Protein backbone atom coordinates (compact mmCIF):
# COMPACT_ATOMS: atom_id res chain seq x y z
CA UNK A 1 0.00 0.00 0.00
CA UNK A 2 1.45 3.41 -0.84
CA UNK A 3 2.29 5.66 2.09
CA UNK A 4 -0.29 8.38 2.71
CA UNK A 5 0.75 11.72 1.24
CA UNK A 6 2.64 13.67 3.86
CA UNK A 7 2.06 17.33 4.34
CA UNK A 8 5.21 18.94 3.09
CA UNK A 9 5.43 21.58 5.76
CA UNK A 10 3.74 23.08 8.77
CA UNK A 11 1.66 26.18 8.20
CA UNK A 12 0.45 28.89 10.56
CA UNK A 13 -3.12 27.72 9.94
CA UNK A 14 -2.35 24.14 10.91
CA UNK A 15 -0.56 25.40 14.04
CA UNK A 16 -3.47 27.59 15.12
CA UNK A 17 -6.01 24.80 14.57
CA UNK A 18 -3.91 22.19 16.38
CA UNK A 19 -3.28 24.50 19.32
CA UNK A 20 -6.97 25.44 19.52
CA UNK A 21 -7.94 21.76 19.66
CA UNK A 22 -5.33 21.07 22.36
CA UNK A 23 -6.40 24.16 24.35
CA UNK A 24 -9.99 22.89 24.24
CA UNK A 25 -8.75 19.48 25.43
CA UNK A 26 -6.88 21.21 28.27
CA UNK A 27 -9.98 23.12 29.33
CA UNK A 28 -11.98 19.91 29.19
CA UNK A 29 -9.36 18.11 31.30
CA UNK A 30 -9.27 20.91 33.89
CA UNK A 31 -13.04 20.93 34.29
CA UNK A 32 -13.77 17.22 34.21
CA UNK A 33 -10.81 15.96 36.21
CA UNK A 34 -11.84 18.36 38.96
CA UNK A 35 -15.09 16.39 39.25
CA UNK A 36 -13.23 13.11 39.76
CA UNK A 37 -11.90 12.12 43.13
CA UNK A 38 -12.48 10.14 46.29
CA UNK A 39 -15.22 12.57 47.34
CA UNK A 40 -17.92 12.64 44.65
CA UNK A 41 -19.29 16.07 43.79
CA UNK A 42 -22.65 16.84 42.14
CA UNK A 43 -21.80 17.33 38.48
CA UNK A 44 -24.26 20.02 37.48
CA UNK A 45 -23.69 22.22 40.53
CA UNK A 46 -19.91 21.84 40.22
CA UNK A 47 -19.94 22.82 36.54
CA UNK A 48 -22.09 25.82 37.40
CA UNK A 49 -19.71 26.88 40.16
CA UNK A 50 -16.68 26.43 37.89
CA UNK A 51 -18.37 28.44 35.12
CA UNK A 52 -18.92 31.29 37.56
CA UNK A 53 -15.19 31.12 38.51
CA UNK A 54 -16.20 30.41 42.10
CA UNK A 55 -18.31 33.54 42.51
CA UNK A 56 -21.43 31.44 42.97
CA UNK A 57 -21.64 28.17 44.95
CA UNK A 58 -24.56 26.95 42.78
CA UNK A 59 -25.88 24.87 45.65
CA UNK A 60 -22.62 23.12 46.59
CA UNK A 61 -22.13 22.70 50.33
CA UNK A 62 -19.27 24.69 51.72
CA UNK A 63 -17.24 21.48 52.13
CA UNK A 64 -17.87 20.54 48.51
CA UNK A 65 -17.05 24.09 47.41
CA UNK A 66 -13.77 23.96 49.31
CA UNK A 67 -12.87 20.55 47.88
CA UNK A 68 -13.46 21.90 44.37
CA UNK A 69 -11.79 25.30 44.69
CA UNK A 70 -9.26 24.88 47.50
CA UNK A 71 -8.06 21.34 46.84
CA UNK A 72 -8.77 19.96 43.38
CA UNK A 73 -8.63 23.00 41.11
CA UNK A 74 -5.29 24.36 42.42
CA UNK A 75 -3.81 20.88 42.20
CA UNK A 76 -5.06 20.45 38.63
CA UNK A 77 -3.75 23.87 37.61
CA UNK A 78 -0.41 23.02 39.18
CA UNK A 79 -0.40 19.72 37.27
CA UNK A 80 -1.11 21.66 34.06
CA UNK A 81 1.70 24.14 34.72
CA UNK A 82 4.19 21.42 35.65
CA UNK A 83 3.24 19.29 32.65
CA UNK A 84 3.43 22.23 30.27
CA UNK A 85 6.78 23.33 31.71
CA UNK A 86 8.41 19.92 31.56
CA UNK A 87 7.20 19.15 28.05
CA UNK A 88 8.37 22.55 26.78
CA UNK A 89 11.72 22.14 28.52
CA UNK A 90 12.08 18.67 26.99
CA UNK A 91 11.47 20.06 23.50
CA UNK A 92 14.02 22.81 24.20
CA UNK A 93 16.72 20.41 25.43
CA UNK A 94 16.09 18.15 22.45
CA UNK A 95 16.74 20.99 20.03
CA UNK A 96 19.73 22.25 22.00
CA UNK A 97 21.38 18.84 22.30
CA UNK A 98 20.15 17.75 18.87
CA UNK A 99 18.84 14.55 20.29
CA UNK A 100 15.23 13.36 20.66
CA UNK A 101 16.18 11.44 23.80
CA UNK A 102 17.07 14.53 25.83
CA UNK A 103 14.76 14.88 28.82
CA UNK A 104 15.22 16.91 32.02
CA UNK A 105 14.66 13.97 34.37
CA UNK A 106 16.85 11.50 32.48
CA UNK A 107 19.64 14.04 32.06
CA UNK A 108 19.74 14.74 35.80
CA UNK A 109 18.57 18.32 35.37
CA UNK A 110 15.52 17.66 37.54
CA UNK A 111 17.93 16.32 40.15
CA UNK A 112 19.88 19.57 39.94
CA UNK A 113 16.69 21.49 40.60
CA UNK A 114 15.82 19.06 43.40
CA UNK A 115 19.16 19.67 45.10
CA UNK A 116 18.51 23.41 44.87
CA UNK A 117 15.03 23.02 46.32
CA UNK A 118 16.30 20.84 49.17
CA UNK A 119 19.04 23.30 50.04
CA UNK A 120 16.39 26.02 50.14
CA UNK A 121 14.18 23.87 52.38
CA UNK A 122 16.92 22.87 54.78
CA UNK A 123 18.69 26.19 55.08
CA UNK A 124 16.06 28.79 54.20
CA UNK A 125 12.90 26.88 55.14
CA UNK A 126 10.90 29.96 56.04
CA UNK A 127 11.54 31.78 52.80
CA UNK A 128 9.40 30.05 50.20
CA UNK A 129 10.68 32.23 47.35
CA UNK A 130 14.18 30.81 47.71
CA UNK A 131 12.91 27.41 46.50
CA UNK A 132 12.25 28.23 42.82
CA UNK A 133 15.33 30.46 42.78
CA UNK A 134 17.70 27.77 44.01
CA UNK A 135 15.89 25.13 41.95
CA UNK A 136 16.53 27.27 38.87
CA UNK A 137 20.19 27.66 39.82
CA UNK A 138 20.50 23.91 40.33
CA UNK A 139 18.83 23.16 37.00
CA UNK A 140 21.06 25.65 35.19
CA UNK A 141 24.25 24.18 36.65
CA UNK A 142 23.12 20.63 35.84
CA UNK A 143 22.24 21.70 32.28
CA UNK A 144 25.70 23.19 31.81
CA UNK A 145 27.31 20.02 33.13
CA UNK A 146 25.29 17.76 30.83
CA UNK A 147 25.91 20.01 27.85
CA UNK A 148 29.66 20.02 28.43
CA UNK A 149 29.81 16.27 28.98
CA UNK A 150 27.50 15.24 26.14
CA UNK A 151 28.58 17.48 23.35
CA UNK A 152 30.99 15.91 20.91
CA UNK A 153 32.12 17.09 17.51
CA UNK A 154 28.96 15.72 15.94
CA UNK A 155 26.53 16.95 18.59
CA UNK A 156 25.31 14.73 21.37
CA UNK A 157 25.18 11.14 20.23
CA UNK A 158 22.63 9.01 22.10
CA UNK A 159 25.40 7.14 23.90
CA UNK A 160 27.19 10.28 25.08
CA UNK A 161 23.95 11.93 26.07
CA UNK A 162 22.71 9.04 28.18
CA UNK A 163 26.13 8.56 29.74
CA UNK A 164 26.28 12.25 30.62
CA UNK A 165 22.78 11.98 32.11
CA UNK A 166 23.77 8.94 34.18
CA UNK A 167 26.86 10.70 35.51
CA UNK A 168 25.02 13.89 36.45
CA UNK A 169 22.04 11.97 37.88
CA UNK A 170 24.10 9.65 40.08
CA UNK A 171 26.33 12.45 41.30
CA UNK A 172 23.36 14.62 42.23
CA UNK A 173 21.53 11.65 43.75
CA UNK A 174 24.34 11.25 46.21
CA UNK A 175 24.15 14.97 46.99
CA UNK A 176 20.41 14.52 47.59
CA UNK A 177 21.08 11.60 49.96
CA UNK A 178 23.62 13.71 51.79
CA UNK A 179 21.17 16.60 52.19
CA UNK A 180 18.41 14.19 53.24
CA UNK A 181 20.53 12.93 56.11
CA UNK A 182 20.60 16.49 57.43
CA UNK A 183 16.80 16.42 57.79
CA UNK A 184 14.88 15.10 60.72
CA UNK A 185 13.33 11.67 60.36
CA UNK A 186 9.70 12.85 60.23
CA UNK A 187 10.30 14.91 57.11
CA UNK A 188 12.25 12.27 55.24
CA UNK A 189 9.17 10.29 54.16
CA UNK A 190 7.40 13.28 52.68
CA UNK A 191 10.61 14.25 50.91
CA UNK A 192 11.02 10.84 49.36
CA UNK A 193 7.47 11.09 48.09
CA UNK A 194 8.11 14.58 46.76
CA UNK A 195 11.30 13.48 45.02
CA UNK A 196 9.30 11.00 42.95
CA UNK A 197 7.04 13.76 41.74
CA UNK A 198 4.15 14.77 43.92
CA UNK A 199 1.51 17.39 43.32
CA UNK A 200 -0.35 16.94 46.59
CA UNK A 201 1.61 18.98 49.01
CA UNK A 202 4.10 21.71 49.21
CA UNK A 203 3.80 23.43 45.85
CA UNK A 204 0.55 25.30 46.29
CA UNK A 205 2.11 28.60 47.30
CA UNK A 206 4.20 28.48 44.13
CA UNK A 207 1.20 28.06 41.81
CA UNK A 208 1.24 31.62 40.40
CA UNK A 209 5.01 31.47 39.78
CA UNK A 210 4.79 28.05 38.13
CA UNK A 211 1.92 29.06 35.84
CA UNK A 212 3.65 32.30 34.82
CA UNK A 213 6.95 30.57 34.08
CA UNK A 214 5.16 27.86 32.06
CA UNK A 215 3.36 30.39 29.86
CA UNK A 216 6.30 32.76 29.40
CA UNK A 217 8.71 29.88 28.76
CA UNK A 218 6.51 28.22 26.17
CA UNK A 219 5.94 31.55 24.38
CA UNK A 220 9.65 32.44 24.40
CA UNK A 221 10.70 29.10 22.94
CA UNK A 222 7.87 29.18 20.38
CA UNK A 223 8.96 32.61 19.18
CA UNK A 224 12.46 31.23 18.62
CA UNK A 225 11.19 27.99 17.12
CA UNK A 226 12.49 28.64 13.64
CA UNK A 227 16.01 29.10 14.99
CA UNK A 228 15.59 25.89 16.97
CA UNK A 229 14.54 24.07 13.80
CA UNK A 230 17.89 24.92 12.27
CA UNK A 231 19.77 24.24 15.49
CA UNK A 232 18.39 20.69 15.41
CA UNK A 233 20.28 20.17 12.14
CA UNK A 234 23.59 21.13 13.72
CA UNK A 235 25.11 24.26 15.17
CA UNK A 236 27.33 24.88 12.20
CA UNK A 237 24.46 24.60 9.75
CA UNK A 238 22.36 26.93 11.88
CA UNK A 239 25.21 29.43 12.05
CA UNK A 240 25.73 29.30 8.28
CA UNK A 241 22.03 29.96 7.69
CA UNK A 242 21.96 33.05 9.90
CA UNK A 243 21.07 31.85 13.41
CA UNK A 244 22.89 33.68 16.19
CA UNK A 245 23.76 30.34 17.72
CA UNK A 246 25.35 31.70 20.91
CA UNK A 247 22.36 33.87 21.78
CA UNK A 248 19.78 31.18 21.07
CA UNK A 249 21.79 28.62 23.04
CA UNK A 250 21.93 30.82 26.12
CA UNK A 251 18.22 31.58 25.74
CA UNK A 252 17.30 27.87 25.66
CA UNK A 253 19.65 27.13 28.59
CA UNK A 254 18.01 29.79 30.73
CA UNK A 255 14.38 29.21 29.72
CA UNK A 256 14.53 25.42 29.97
CA UNK A 257 16.28 25.63 33.35
CA UNK A 258 13.65 28.11 34.58
CA UNK A 259 10.89 25.75 33.46
CA UNK A 260 12.47 22.73 35.16
CA UNK A 261 13.39 24.77 38.26
CA UNK A 262 9.89 26.12 38.82
CA UNK A 263 8.17 22.80 38.27
CA UNK A 264 10.58 20.81 40.44
CA UNK A 265 10.31 23.40 43.23
CA UNK A 266 6.55 22.94 43.13
CA UNK A 267 6.21 19.23 42.56
CA UNK A 268 9.50 17.34 42.72
CA UNK A 269 10.87 15.34 39.83
CA UNK A 270 8.07 14.23 37.55
CA UNK A 271 9.92 12.11 35.03
CA UNK A 272 9.53 11.33 31.34
CA UNK A 273 7.01 14.12 30.57
CA UNK A 274 9.65 15.94 28.53
CA UNK A 275 10.28 12.76 26.54
CA UNK A 276 6.78 11.39 25.99
CA UNK A 277 4.94 14.57 25.10
CA UNK A 278 7.31 16.25 22.59
CA UNK A 279 7.71 12.85 20.95
CA UNK A 280 3.95 12.44 20.50
CA UNK A 281 3.69 16.04 19.27
CA UNK A 282 6.36 15.43 16.63
CA UNK A 283 4.88 12.09 15.66
CA UNK A 284 1.44 13.55 15.01
CA UNK A 285 2.29 17.08 13.83
CA UNK A 286 5.86 16.96 12.48
CA UNK A 287 9.24 18.13 13.79
CA UNK A 288 8.75 21.82 13.12
CA UNK A 289 9.18 23.45 16.53
CA UNK A 290 6.75 26.21 15.58
CA UNK A 291 3.98 23.65 15.99
CA UNK A 292 5.59 20.99 18.19
CA UNK A 293 6.61 23.32 21.05
CA UNK A 294 3.19 24.95 21.67
CA UNK A 295 1.52 21.58 21.07
CA UNK A 296 3.89 19.91 23.55
CA UNK A 297 3.21 22.66 26.12
CA UNK A 298 -0.56 22.17 25.90
CA UNK A 299 -0.32 18.39 25.53
CA UNK A 300 2.06 18.16 28.51
CA UNK A 301 -0.47 20.01 30.65
CA UNK A 302 -3.21 17.53 29.69
CA UNK A 303 -0.86 14.55 30.15
CA UNK A 304 0.12 15.44 33.72
CA UNK A 305 -3.47 16.34 34.68
CA UNK A 306 -4.60 12.89 33.55
CA UNK A 307 -1.59 11.16 35.16
CA UNK A 308 -2.21 12.97 38.44
CA UNK A 309 -5.92 12.10 38.38
CA UNK A 310 -4.88 8.46 38.03
CA UNK A 311 -2.34 8.92 40.83
CA UNK A 312 -4.95 10.20 43.25
CA UNK A 313 -7.78 7.83 42.30
CA UNK A 314 -6.24 4.44 41.40
CA UNK A 315 -5.72 3.28 44.99
CA UNK A 316 -7.89 5.92 46.70
CA UNK A 317 -8.01 7.01 49.43
CA UNK A 318 -4.25 6.44 49.29
CA UNK A 319 -2.22 8.23 46.63
CA UNK A 320 0.60 7.36 44.29
CA UNK A 321 3.26 9.93 43.38
CA UNK A 322 2.40 11.28 39.93
CA UNK A 323 6.02 10.61 38.85
CA UNK A 324 5.35 6.87 39.24
CA UNK A 325 2.51 7.08 36.71
CA UNK A 326 4.46 9.17 34.18
CA UNK A 327 7.47 6.85 34.47
CA UNK A 328 5.24 3.82 33.96
CA UNK A 329 4.17 5.30 30.62
CA UNK A 330 7.49 6.93 29.74
CA UNK A 331 10.04 4.21 30.40
CA UNK A 332 8.73 1.76 27.77
CA UNK A 333 8.56 4.59 25.22
CA UNK A 334 12.15 5.52 26.07
CA UNK A 335 13.29 1.97 25.37
CA UNK A 336 11.43 2.04 22.05
CA UNK A 337 13.06 5.37 21.06
CA UNK A 338 16.48 4.15 22.13
CA UNK A 339 16.14 1.10 19.90
CA UNK A 340 15.31 3.34 16.97
CA UNK A 341 18.10 5.88 17.66
Amino acid at each position, binding site marked *: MPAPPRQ*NRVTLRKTVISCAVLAAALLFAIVFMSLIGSESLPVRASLCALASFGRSSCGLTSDQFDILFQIRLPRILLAAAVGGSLATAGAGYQALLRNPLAEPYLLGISNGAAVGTMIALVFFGAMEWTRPLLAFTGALLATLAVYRLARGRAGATPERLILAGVIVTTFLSSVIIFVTTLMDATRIRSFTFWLLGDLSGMGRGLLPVTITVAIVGALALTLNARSLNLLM*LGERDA*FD*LGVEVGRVRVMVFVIASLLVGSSVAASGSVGYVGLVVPHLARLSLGSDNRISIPAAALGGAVFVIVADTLARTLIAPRELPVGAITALIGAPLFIYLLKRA
Partner: protein
Amino acid sequence: MLEARDLTVSYDHRIAVADLSLTLKPREITAIIGPNGAGKSTLLRALNGHVHASSGTIVLDGQPIERLSRRTISRRIAVVAQEAELRFPVTVLEFVLGGRFAWATNAGWGWESERDLQIAGAVLRETELSDLSGRLMNELSGGERQRALMARALATEASILLLDEPTANLDLSHQANLLSLVRNRCNRNETAALVVTHDINLAAQFADHLLLMKQGRAVHSGTPREVLQPEILQEVFEVRVLVDAHPVTGGPRVTPIHDPHSSV
Protein backbone atom coordinates in the same frame (compact mmCIF):
# COMPACT_ATOMS: atom_id res chain seq x y z
CA MET B 1 32.39 40.34 -3.61
CA LEU B 2 34.32 38.46 -0.94
CA GLU B 3 37.94 39.13 -0.32
CA ALA B 4 40.55 37.83 2.11
CA ARG B 5 43.51 40.15 2.71
CA ASP B 6 46.67 38.73 4.29
CA LEU B 7 44.53 36.32 6.27
CA THR B 8 46.09 34.31 9.08
CA VAL B 9 44.08 31.90 11.20
CA SER B 10 45.57 29.98 14.09
CA TYR B 11 44.16 27.39 16.47
CA ASP B 12 45.86 26.54 19.74
CA HIS B 13 49.15 28.12 18.62
CA ARG B 14 49.05 26.15 15.37
CA ILE B 15 48.79 28.20 12.21
CA ALA B 16 46.09 26.78 9.93
CA VAL B 17 46.01 29.53 7.31
CA ALA B 18 48.99 31.81 6.79
CA ASP B 19 49.10 35.18 5.10
CA LEU B 20 46.63 34.28 2.40
CA SER B 21 44.96 36.68 0.01
CA LEU B 22 42.07 35.72 -2.22
CA THR B 23 39.27 37.45 -4.12
CA LEU B 24 36.07 35.75 -5.21
CA LYS B 25 34.63 37.44 -8.27
CA PRO B 26 31.12 37.21 -9.73
CA ARG B 27 30.68 34.56 -12.45
CA GLU B 28 33.85 32.80 -11.38
CA ILE B 29 34.39 29.40 -9.77
CA THR B 30 37.51 29.17 -7.66
CA ALA B 31 38.67 25.75 -6.55
CA ILE B 32 40.98 25.18 -3.62
CA ILE B 33 43.09 22.06 -3.82
CA GLY B 34 45.88 20.77 -1.67
CA PRO B 35 46.91 17.87 0.55
CA ASN B 36 45.03 16.90 3.72
CA GLY B 37 45.58 19.39 6.52
CA ALA B 38 46.56 22.19 4.13
CA GLY B 39 43.97 24.52 5.76
CA LYS B 40 41.41 24.43 2.95
CA SER B 41 38.35 23.90 5.13
CA THR B 42 39.61 26.35 7.74
CA LEU B 43 39.96 28.98 5.03
CA LEU B 44 36.39 28.32 3.95
CA ARG B 45 35.12 28.64 7.50
CA ALA B 46 37.08 31.84 8.02
CA LEU B 47 35.61 33.33 4.84
CA ASN B 48 32.15 32.68 6.29
CA GLY B 49 33.00 34.32 9.62
CA HIS B 50 32.85 31.02 11.48
CA VAL B 51 36.44 31.17 12.68
CA HIS B 52 38.12 34.44 13.47
CA ALA B 53 41.19 35.76 11.74
CA SER B 54 44.29 36.14 13.93
CA SER B 55 45.45 38.82 11.56
CA GLY B 56 44.41 40.22 8.22
CA THR B 57 40.81 40.93 7.21
CA ILE B 58 37.91 39.45 5.33
CA VAL B 59 35.91 41.99 3.39
CA LEU B 60 32.36 41.31 2.20
CA ASP B 61 30.95 43.85 -0.28
CA GLY B 62 33.34 46.51 0.99
CA GLN B 63 32.80 45.95 4.71
CA PRO B 64 34.89 43.96 7.21
CA ILE B 65 32.92 40.79 7.91
CA GLU B 66 33.06 41.12 11.70
CA ARG B 67 31.04 44.33 11.50
CA LEU B 68 28.14 42.59 9.76
CA SER B 69 25.33 40.78 11.56
CA ARG B 70 24.98 37.03 11.16
CA ARG B 71 21.80 37.48 9.15
CA THR B 72 23.38 39.95 6.75
CA ILE B 73 26.28 37.59 6.13
CA SER B 74 23.94 34.63 5.62
CA ARG B 75 21.96 36.52 3.00
CA ARG B 76 25.13 37.01 0.98
CA ILE B 77 27.16 33.88 1.67
CA ALA B 78 25.76 30.35 1.48
CA VAL B 79 27.70 27.29 2.57
CA VAL B 80 27.30 23.76 1.30
CA ALA B 81 29.03 21.68 3.93
CA GLN B 82 29.19 17.95 4.16
CA GLU B 83 26.12 16.03 5.17
CA ALA B 84 23.76 17.46 7.76
CA GLU B 85 22.82 15.53 10.88
CA LEU B 86 19.30 14.21 10.68
CA ARG B 87 18.18 12.91 14.05
CA PHE B 88 14.73 14.48 13.66
CA PRO B 89 12.36 13.78 10.78
CA VAL B 90 12.39 16.77 8.40
CA THR B 91 10.79 16.90 4.97
CA VAL B 92 12.85 18.00 1.98
CA LEU B 93 10.74 21.14 1.59
CA GLU B 94 11.17 22.06 5.27
CA PHE B 95 14.90 21.47 4.94
CA VAL B 96 15.20 23.68 1.86
CA LEU B 97 13.07 26.41 3.44
CA GLY B 98 15.77 26.58 6.12
CA GLY B 99 17.71 28.53 3.49
CA ARG B 100 15.17 31.34 3.78
CA PHE B 101 15.81 31.87 7.52
CA ALA B 102 18.02 34.93 7.08
CA TRP B 103 15.26 36.66 5.11
CA ALA B 104 12.58 36.28 7.79
CA THR B 105 11.02 39.52 8.99
CA ASN B 106 9.41 40.36 12.31
CA ALA B 107 6.17 41.01 10.45
CA GLY B 108 6.08 37.37 9.37
CA TRP B 109 6.29 36.09 12.99
CA GLY B 110 8.88 33.57 11.87
CA TRP B 111 6.69 32.08 9.12
CA GLU B 112 7.70 31.75 5.50
CA SER B 113 6.32 34.27 3.03
CA GLU B 114 4.82 33.48 -0.38
CA ARG B 115 8.10 34.57 -1.90
CA ASP B 116 10.03 32.11 0.26
CA LEU B 117 7.78 29.31 -1.00
CA GLN B 118 8.21 30.37 -4.61
CA ILE B 119 11.98 30.42 -4.27
CA ALA B 120 11.97 27.01 -2.57
CA GLY B 121 9.81 25.65 -5.38
CA ALA B 122 12.19 27.04 -7.99
CA VAL B 123 15.34 25.60 -6.42
CA LEU B 124 13.65 22.24 -5.92
CA ARG B 125 12.95 22.19 -9.66
CA GLU B 126 16.49 23.32 -10.39
CA THR B 127 17.92 20.47 -8.32
CA GLU B 128 15.31 17.99 -9.62
CA LEU B 129 13.89 17.38 -6.17
CA SER B 130 10.31 18.60 -6.74
CA ASP B 131 8.90 15.08 -6.65
CA LEU B 132 10.64 14.40 -3.36
CA SER B 133 9.63 17.59 -1.56
CA GLY B 134 7.31 15.75 0.84
CA ARG B 135 9.76 12.94 1.59
CA LEU B 136 11.76 12.84 4.78
CA MET B 137 15.41 13.78 4.45
CA ASN B 138 16.61 10.55 6.06
CA GLU B 139 14.69 8.52 3.49
CA LEU B 140 16.77 10.00 0.64
CA SER B 141 19.86 8.50 -0.94
CA GLY B 142 23.23 10.12 -0.33
CA GLY B 143 23.13 11.82 -3.71
CA GLU B 144 19.63 13.18 -3.17
CA ARG B 145 20.60 14.51 0.24
CA GLN B 146 23.60 16.28 -1.24
CA ARG B 147 21.28 17.87 -3.81
CA ALA B 148 18.96 18.98 -1.01
CA LEU B 149 21.95 20.64 0.70
CA MET B 150 22.70 22.38 -2.57
CA ALA B 151 19.04 23.40 -2.96
CA ARG B 152 19.05 24.92 0.51
CA ALA B 153 22.16 26.93 -0.28
CA LEU B 154 20.63 28.15 -3.55
CA ALA B 155 17.43 29.11 -1.69
CA THR B 156 19.41 31.69 0.30
CA GLU B 157 19.90 33.65 -2.96
CA ALA B 158 23.37 34.41 -1.73
CA SER B 159 25.75 35.86 -4.26
CA ILE B 160 28.64 33.86 -2.86
CA LEU B 161 28.62 30.07 -2.60
CA LEU B 162 31.18 28.26 -0.47
CA LEU B 163 31.25 24.52 -1.07
CA ASP B 164 33.23 22.12 1.12
CA GLU B 165 33.84 18.81 -0.68
CA PRO B 166 30.41 18.98 -2.30
CA THR B 167 31.00 15.94 -4.49
CA ALA B 168 32.54 13.64 -1.88
CA ASN B 169 29.52 11.32 -1.63
CA LEU B 170 28.41 11.49 -5.23
CA ASP B 171 28.75 9.18 -8.19
CA LEU B 172 30.19 10.42 -11.49
CA SER B 173 26.97 11.73 -13.04
CA HIS B 174 25.86 13.46 -9.83
CA GLN B 175 29.28 15.08 -9.46
CA ALA B 176 28.97 16.65 -12.87
CA ASN B 177 25.32 17.62 -12.31
CA LEU B 178 26.09 19.33 -9.04
CA LEU B 179 28.94 21.34 -10.49
CA SER B 180 26.77 22.26 -13.49
CA LEU B 181 24.26 23.70 -11.03
CA VAL B 182 27.02 25.80 -9.51
CA ARG B 183 28.18 26.90 -12.94
CA ASN B 184 24.65 27.87 -14.01
CA ARG B 185 24.07 29.83 -10.85
CA CYS B 186 27.37 31.68 -11.33
CA ASN B 187 26.56 32.58 -14.92
CA ARG B 188 22.94 33.58 -14.42
CA ASN B 189 22.96 35.29 -11.03
CA GLU B 190 26.35 36.99 -10.98
CA THR B 191 27.37 34.56 -8.26
CA ALA B 192 30.89 33.74 -7.14
CA ALA B 193 31.70 30.21 -5.99
CA LEU B 194 34.52 28.68 -4.01
CA VAL B 195 34.88 24.90 -4.03
CA VAL B 196 37.15 23.00 -1.68
CA THR B 197 37.89 19.65 -3.26
CA HIS B 198 40.27 16.73 -3.40
CA ASP B 199 39.29 15.95 -6.95
CA ILE B 200 41.88 17.77 -9.02
CA ASN B 201 40.45 16.65 -12.36
CA LEU B 202 36.97 17.83 -11.49
CA ALA B 203 38.46 21.14 -10.36
CA ALA B 204 40.40 21.37 -13.63
CA GLN B 205 37.19 20.93 -15.56
CA PHE B 206 34.91 23.31 -13.69
CA ALA B 207 37.06 25.96 -12.08
CA ASP B 208 38.10 29.23 -13.65
CA HIS B 209 40.70 29.72 -11.02
CA LEU B 210 42.71 27.31 -8.90
CA LEU B 211 44.35 27.98 -5.57
CA LEU B 212 46.85 25.39 -4.46
CA MET B 213 47.42 25.30 -0.71
CA LYS B 214 50.06 23.63 1.40
CA GLN B 215 50.58 24.02 5.14
CA GLY B 216 48.20 26.95 5.32
CA ARG B 217 49.82 28.91 2.53
CA ALA B 218 48.70 29.61 -0.99
CA VAL B 219 51.62 28.16 -2.93
CA HIS B 220 50.28 28.70 -6.43
CA SER B 221 47.25 30.28 -7.99
CA GLY B 222 46.03 30.86 -11.51
CA THR B 223 44.05 29.12 -14.23
CA PRO B 224 43.97 25.31 -14.15
CA ARG B 225 46.50 25.28 -17.00
CA GLU B 226 48.91 27.50 -15.07
CA VAL B 227 48.66 25.66 -11.79
CA LEU B 228 48.40 22.04 -12.86
CA GLN B 229 52.05 21.58 -13.84
CA PRO B 230 53.80 18.29 -13.00
CA GLU B 231 56.62 19.94 -11.06
CA ILE B 232 54.23 22.11 -9.02
CA LEU B 233 51.98 19.17 -8.13
CA GLN B 234 54.94 16.97 -7.31
CA GLU B 235 56.30 19.59 -4.95
CA VAL B 236 52.95 20.06 -3.17
CA PHE B 237 51.57 16.51 -3.06
CA GLU B 238 54.94 14.73 -2.93
CA VAL B 239 53.91 12.24 -5.57
CA ARG B 240 54.89 11.92 -9.22
CA VAL B 241 52.13 12.87 -11.59
CA LEU B 242 51.46 12.78 -15.27
CA VAL B 243 49.71 15.85 -16.69
CA ASP B 244 48.35 15.51 -20.17
CA ALA B 245 45.53 17.06 -22.18
CA HIS B 246 42.02 15.78 -21.61
CA PRO B 247 41.02 14.13 -24.91
CA VAL B 248 37.61 15.81 -24.97
CA THR B 249 37.96 19.17 -23.23
CA GLY B 250 41.63 19.72 -23.95
CA GLY B 251 42.12 20.92 -20.38
CA PRO B 252 44.83 19.50 -18.11
CA ARG B 253 44.34 15.97 -16.78
CA VAL B 254 46.28 14.75 -13.77
CA THR B 255 47.17 11.10 -13.14
CA PRO B 256 49.37 10.06 -10.19
CA ILE B 257 52.17 7.66 -11.11
CA HIS B 258 52.69 4.89 -8.61
CA ASP B 259 56.16 3.61 -9.32
CA PRO B 260 57.01 0.90 -6.79
CA HIS B 261 60.74 1.37 -7.40
CA SER B 262 60.77 5.09 -6.82
CA SER B 263 61.07 6.69 -3.40
CA VAL B 264 59.43 9.95 -4.58
